[in-house]
């Protein structure tokens, strides 16, 4: 049997981004689409929230995708198969709002979000929905998990900024084209905040039900600290506890973008320290 929080499999996806299967039986036990975990890389590490791209309750493993962006994610991506995370806690948050909808259901994944939208996509399809996946990358070589998306969804639209594959442009360009062709009635987007905001702006005039998954700054992840405060419909919500999924048309993205910058200075210092340690 693997050790607790052991990486039983690691796959490098693109430079700086890796997919891990980790033995975390308590987290895997009762996971639902859209939920997340919090992990620490080592005993001195911070707690960071990570979306889930799959799980196996029998084997006790969870599947996560981590992109090296700051100190902790950089340290995480450097871990090898057979090594262990310090600890993993979950499942956290509420599951995605799943339902049988009249038109097409669309999942939009940016970067790590491509993995995160898979469980909700599977669940929406299982409910009898037509599910289209939209994924984006800068260019063809950086497109993530396309084959798996094709298995999970009825159709997949790949968007590349340089036009080297599929639709030229952003995921919003792919979504725009799809909305011209089909009756899109449900959208879930997971990825960088500006992407989720752009998706929300695109679907708002047509009043398409749109959810986004907010991966705000968190500490405990159980509602205890309130670090993850977001304004939704003019009210303060805790992303960890009330979310992570929210009605994207109600989210105050401007505030969220600002709040994500709270620890920018500290993040720089922490990265320098990591270089020093190396």
């Amino acid at each position, binding site marked *: 049997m693997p050790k607790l929080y052991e990486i039983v499999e690691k796959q490098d996806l693109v430079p700086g981004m890796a997919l891990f299967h980790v033995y975390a039986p*308590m*987290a895997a*036990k*009762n996971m639902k689409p859209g939920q997340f975990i919090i992990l*620490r890389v080592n005993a*001195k*590490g*911070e*707690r960071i929230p990570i979306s889930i791209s799959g799980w196996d309750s029998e084997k006790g493993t969870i599947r996560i995708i981590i992109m090296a962006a700051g*100190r*902790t994610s950089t340290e995480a991506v450097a871990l090898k198969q057979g090594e262990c995370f*310090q*600890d*993993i*806690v*979950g*499942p*956290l948050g509420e599951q995605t709002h799943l339902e049988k909808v009249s038109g097409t259901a669309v999942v939009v994944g940016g970067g790590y979000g491509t993995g995160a939208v898979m469980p909700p996509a599977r669940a929406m399809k299982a409910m009898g929905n037509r599910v289209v996946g939209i994924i984006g990358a800068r260019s063809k070589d950086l497109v993530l998990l396309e084959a798996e998306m094709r298995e999970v969804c009825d159709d997949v639209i790949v968007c590349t900024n340089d036009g080297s594959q599929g639709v030229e442009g952003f995921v919003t360009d792919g979504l725009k084209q799809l909305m011209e062709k089909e009756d899109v009635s449900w959208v879930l987007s997971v990825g960088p905040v500006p992407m989720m905001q752009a998706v929300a702006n695109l679907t708002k005039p047509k009043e398409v039900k749109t959810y986004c998954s907010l991966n705000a700054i968190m*500490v*405990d992840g*159980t*509602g*205890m*600290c*309130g*670090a993850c*405060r977001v*304004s939704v419909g003019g009210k*303060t919500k*805790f992303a960890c*506890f009330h979310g992570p999924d929210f009605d994207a048309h109600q989210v105050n993205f401007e*505030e969220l973008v*600002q*709040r994500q*910058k*709270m*620890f920018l*200075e*500290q*993040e720089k*210092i*922490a990265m*320098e*320290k990591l270089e020093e340690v190396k």
Partner: protein
Amino acid sequence: MAELTPKERMAIERHPMPEQRPEDRVKNFDEVPLGFADENAKREAARCLDCKTPQCVEGCPVRIDIPAFIKLIEKGDFDASAKKLRETNFLPAICGRVCPQDQQCELVCIIGKRGKPVAIGSLERFASDYERDNGLRKVPEVAASTGKKVAVVGSGPAGMTAAYEIRKRGHDVTVFEAFHRGGGVLVYGIPRFRLPLAVIDEDINFLEQMGVKFMYNTIVGKSMSLDDLMGPEWGFDSIFVGTGAGLPKMTGVPGENLNGVYSANEYLTRVYLMGANNFPDNVTPLYQGKKVGIIGAGNTAMDAARTAKRLGADVTVYYRRSEEEAPARTEELHHAKEEFITFKFLSNPTEFVGDDNFFIRQIKCDVMELGEADDSGRRRPQPTGESFVDDCDTAIMALGCDVNPIIPTSNPEIEVNKWGVVVANPETGATSKKGVFAGGDLITGGSTVIQAMGQAKVAAAALHEYVMSNGNAFGYWQD
């Protein structure tokens, strides 16, 4: 030594526990009170009149035999004194440090009517520290195995006490904890200069030596339901829930979501659970400016204020009522004042003002005055029409917490009141769900460590009766 007369005892002055000097202690996180020397403890213990009907015992939520442990200190038998304490209280080193004695045992101490009460808290701390420092602490005895399995949810003061009380009766106990370490609010919410980590960890260590199992990083209500725990897979016969009050209240004041505005829970958790005071050696960051404003005047507000001071800030406490209504222990207010913290009473924040980068820069307050008494019996603060603006680049909201909602929301059959507080029978701790008992802030909405422990003791006794009757005790749970 000849037996002292009551008159002689009453003539002894209360011996203040020596403390680090304020100018020194604001530069470190070491404990502020330094502890009694043996002779001083004996002299302080001699002040106790050993009353026939001791009021102090009535004032203690866990009914410690206070005169008995104090008289053992007077005799110089410090080890026996500690053992006496442990007969009723598993956590005396913690209680001696964080209990509001001034509102409990020491409040009703008979010699406190004429002069200063016996320093019961300091003596409790002395005896338990003596026992620990001299390696005299013994693993508590555990009754023969009953074959019953009990789950304890949460490892804070309620959960630790329940685990001890249930385990010593011979039941198999597993504690489920959401964080990566045990102690709950004792770790994430109480500063190290009031309660060192070693004290908490020793108690957890003793629980482990008694055979209590701990499962960290496990969230009951998410990983598994209470029904799962009592189902065939886990096979627990009963559950004690002590998940606390951990959902911080916010003011709703404009600017509350600016960067640099924290809940006290977040601020203290970053420092004391995650070690952000040693950033970047510890990776959890803390942003703190030079002028820190604390909103509220309870114990948590004092903890945040004194922490911010130690991290180098100029600290001001804003409270909408007057000092008299401040909910903090007298000692906490006193310590905070000694540590050069400014208090602005009758000041009600109305807005946090940010800069272009979304960071807080100013705090606007209404100047208040006290009007008629409100429902809480305290005089209601009302605006005078005057206001002021202070520079402020970090604000910490210490306005109390709501109950942690994970257990109630994931178990709708557990009855809660309109504030989301779990309803539990005061005599037994029984909730509305069969086999599930509760104690601590979860059933009070926010109280003290010792109250939580008292409730956990009550619930543990009832839980014992329940499992030993094979679930037949407590008629209202009949199917």
